[in-house]
C-alpha cells in the first residue's frame, strides 16, 4: 500500500546471508566512521565544558585494562542484555515493545514480593527459581496484555507499552511508599532486604553473580528459538505479513501474544535477576532508564538477537564509563547520556546507507 513504507526503512529480519569479507569490511566502514563522528562531536562538547582532552581520552582508555571496569560492565549488562532481547523478539513478530522499562519494573516488583513472602522458608535455589519465575510472569503478563489489546482492539502496542512504563513506575512507587515500605527503614521508600540465602551466589573470585550465566543461557535459548525453530519462523512470518500468516494457518493472536509475552517475560526476568543477583532490595531508582537503553540496544542492532546482546553490552560499558568521564574529565554526570544519544544517532542515522524510498 502506498503509505506504508514512507518514512521507515523496512528492517524485517532478513534471511541469513553468507558473509563476504570484502563487502563486510566495506559495510563496517560506515558504522566505524559514524561512531568516530559521534565521539568527535562529544569531544567538542566536552572541550566546550573545559574538560581536558587528556582526561577524556584517559576516561575511555582507563577501563580497558581495569578488571573492575569489566566486572562492573558485566554486572550492569545482565538486565540490559536480557531486556534488549526482550525487545528484539517481539520486534521479529512485528511488535514494538517500548515497554521494557515497565516490564523490568514489573519483574523486580514481582520478584521482590515473592522473595519477601518466601523469606527464608525456601532453600536458596528454590527461592531463586520462584523469584525468577515470578519476575518473568509479571513482565510477560504486562507485555502479553499489551499484545492482546493489539490483536483484540488494534490498540498500537508501541503506545500501550510506553504508557505502561509510567503506570508501572507509579505502581511501584505506591508500593514502596505505602504497603511495602520497610518498617525499619526510617520511612525511606524501600522494601525489607531479601534474605541473604535468596540472593544469587557470586562467581568465585568476582563480584559478578551467577545471574550473568542465567542471562547468557536464556538469551542463547531465545536466539535459538527465534532463529532456528519453526516457532521462530512463524513469528517472523507473522511479523513480516500478518495477513499472509493468517492465510497460512498461523494465528496472529498466538504469535503476537506469545512473542510479546516472551519478550516481556525476558525483561521481567532481567528485573528479577537484577534484584536477586545484585540489589537485594526494591527501591525506586534501581532500574532508572535501563529499559529505554535496552530498547535502543535492540534498535541499533535492528532486532538481530545476537547484535542486541552485543549492543547492550556496549551500552553497559558506556554507562559504567560515565564514572571515569566525571572523575577524570570533570564532566557532568549526565554527559554519558549525551554520548549514548550521539552514538545511537550516528549508528542509526549515519551508519546505514539505507534511505527511505518514495
Amino acid at each position, binding site marked *: 500500500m502506498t503509505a506504508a513504507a514512507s*518514512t521507515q526503512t523496512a528492517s524485517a529480519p532478513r534471511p541469513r546471508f553468507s558473509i563476504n569479507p570484502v563487502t563486510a569490511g566495506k559495510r563496517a566502514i560506515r558504522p566505524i566512521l559514524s561512531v568516530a563522528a559521534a565521539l568527535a562531536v562529544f569531544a567538542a562538547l566536552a572541550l566546550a565544558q573545559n574538560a581536558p582532552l587528556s582526561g577524556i581520552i584517559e576516561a575511555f582508555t582507563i577501563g580497558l585494562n581495569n578488571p573492575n571496569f569489566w566486572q562492573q560492565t558485566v554486572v550492569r549488562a545482565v538486565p540490559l542484555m536480557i531486556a534488549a532481547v526482550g525487545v528484539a523478539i517481539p520486534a521479529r513478530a512485528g511488535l514494538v515493545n517500548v515497554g521494557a522499562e515497565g516490564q523490568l519494573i514489573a519483574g523486580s516488583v514481582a520478584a521482590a514480593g515473592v522473595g519477601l513472602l518466601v523469606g527464608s522458608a525456601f532453600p536458596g535455589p528454590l527461592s531463586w527459581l520462584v523469584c525468577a519465575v515470578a519476575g518473568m510472569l509479571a513482565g510477560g503478563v504486562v507485555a502479553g496484555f499489551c499484545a492482546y489489546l493489539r490483536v483484540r482492539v488494534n490498540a498500537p502496542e508501541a503506545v*500501550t507499552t510506553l504508557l505502561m512504563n*509510567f*503506570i508501572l513506575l507509579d505502581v511501584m512507587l505506591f508500593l514502596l511508599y505505602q504497603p511495602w515500605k520497610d518498617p525499619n527503614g526510617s520511612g525511606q521508600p524501600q522494601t525489607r532486604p531479601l534474605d541473604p540465602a535468596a540472593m544469587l551466589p557470586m562467581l568465585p573470585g568476582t563480584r559478578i553473580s551467577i545471574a550473568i550465566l542465567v542471562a547468557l543461557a536464556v538469551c542463547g535459548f531465545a536466539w535459538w528459538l527465534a532463529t532456528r525453530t519453526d516457532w521462530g519462523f512463524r513469528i517472523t512470518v507473522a511479523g513480516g505479513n500478518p495477513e499472509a500468516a493468517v492465510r497460512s494457518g498461523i494465528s496472529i493472536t498466538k504469535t503476537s501474544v506469545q512473542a510479546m509475552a516472551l519478550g516481556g517475560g525476558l525483561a521481567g526476568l532481567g528485573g528479577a535477576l537484577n534484584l536477586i543477583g545484585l540489589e537485594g532490595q526494591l527501591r525506586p531508582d534501581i532500574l532508572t532508564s535501563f529499559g529505554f537503553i535496552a530498547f*535502543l540496544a535492540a534498535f541499533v542492532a535492528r532486532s538481530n538477537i545476537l547484535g542486541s546482546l552485543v549492543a547492550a553490552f556496549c551500552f553497559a560499558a558506556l554507562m559504567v564509563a560515565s564514572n571515569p568521564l566525571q572523575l577524570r574529565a570533570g564532566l557532568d554526570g549526565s554527559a554519558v*547520556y549525551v554520548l*549514548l544519544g550521539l552514538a*545511537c544517532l550516528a549508528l542509526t542515522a549515519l551508519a*546505514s546507507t539505507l*534511505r527511505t524510498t518514495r
Partner: protein
Amino acid sequence: MIEILLAGAIATGTAILLPALGELLTQRAGITNLGTEGAMLAGALTGVIMGISTGSPWLGIGAGILAGAAVAALFAWAVVFRGTNQLATGLIVWFLLFGLTSMFGREYNGQVLPPIGKLAIPGLSDLPFVGSILFHQSPIVYLGFALIAGVWWLLTRSRVGLLIRATGERPLVVAAAGNRPRLIQFLTTTLGGGLSGLGGSYLSVGVVGNWSNNMTNGYGFIAVTVVIFAAWRTNWATVGSYLFGAAITFASQLQARGFAVNQYLLDALPYLLTLVVLVVISSQRKAAPEALNAALAAR
C-alpha cells in the same frame, strides 16, 4: 474555589498544551516525536540562559522556541531524511537533550530571573466566573489560546494543513501530486518542536523563573499521551491538556484544603485514561493517521 481550581488547571495545562499542539501537528504529518521531552528541556534551558543574559524574559521565550525547533529538526532529519525509527530516535533525542541540558545548564541551576507573571486582560478579567479563570493568566496562556485556534485553523482550514494531513495519511500520494512529503514532515515536525520549546520556556521563564535539571519531568511524554487521548483532534487535545493540568493542580489544591489524595494514582491518571481511550478508539475504523500507524507498526 472552583475558579481557582480551573484557573490553575489552565495555567498548568498550558505547559502540556503547548507541546501537545506541537505533537499534534507532528503526528498529523505522520510522525510520532517522543523527543518532545527533549525539545521541552532545550526550550526551558535556552529560555533561562537567554533570559538571564539579556534580562528579557521574552527574548528567552523566543530563544526557547528556536531551541525546541532545532531539537525537533535534528530528530526530523534523522527520521525523515535518514529513515530511522521514529520511536527509537525520539528516545535518543530525549537522552541526548537530557544530557546536554544537564551539562550546559549546570551553572544556571539556582540562578533566577523574574518570571513573566500574570497579565489581567482589562475588561475581560472582570467578567464573573470566566474572567478569573481565563483572563487572569500569563500572557503565554493567552498565546496558548491563540495557538489552539491557530493550529485548528491551520489543520482544517488552510491548504498547508491539507498538505500536512494528506502527508500523514499517504505520503506517496502527496509526492505523486508533486509535493514534497518529506519536506512537509520535516518542516511540520520542526514547527511542532518550536511549540514544545515554547512549552519548555513557558515552564522555566514564564512560570517558575529558574532552571533545574530535568525540570520538565515527563510533561513531554504526557503531551504525546494527550495527542493520542485526543484522537488527533485539536479540540480534544485542548481538553486533554487542561484536564491533565487539572489532575496536577487538583492534587495540590485538594491537599491544601486538607483532603487526602493518592498522589501515585493521580500521577498515573493521564496514562491510565489514555490507555482506556486508546482501547476505545482503536477499534474504530479510522483512529490514527494512516502513515502514523504504519510507522508505529514498523520495526
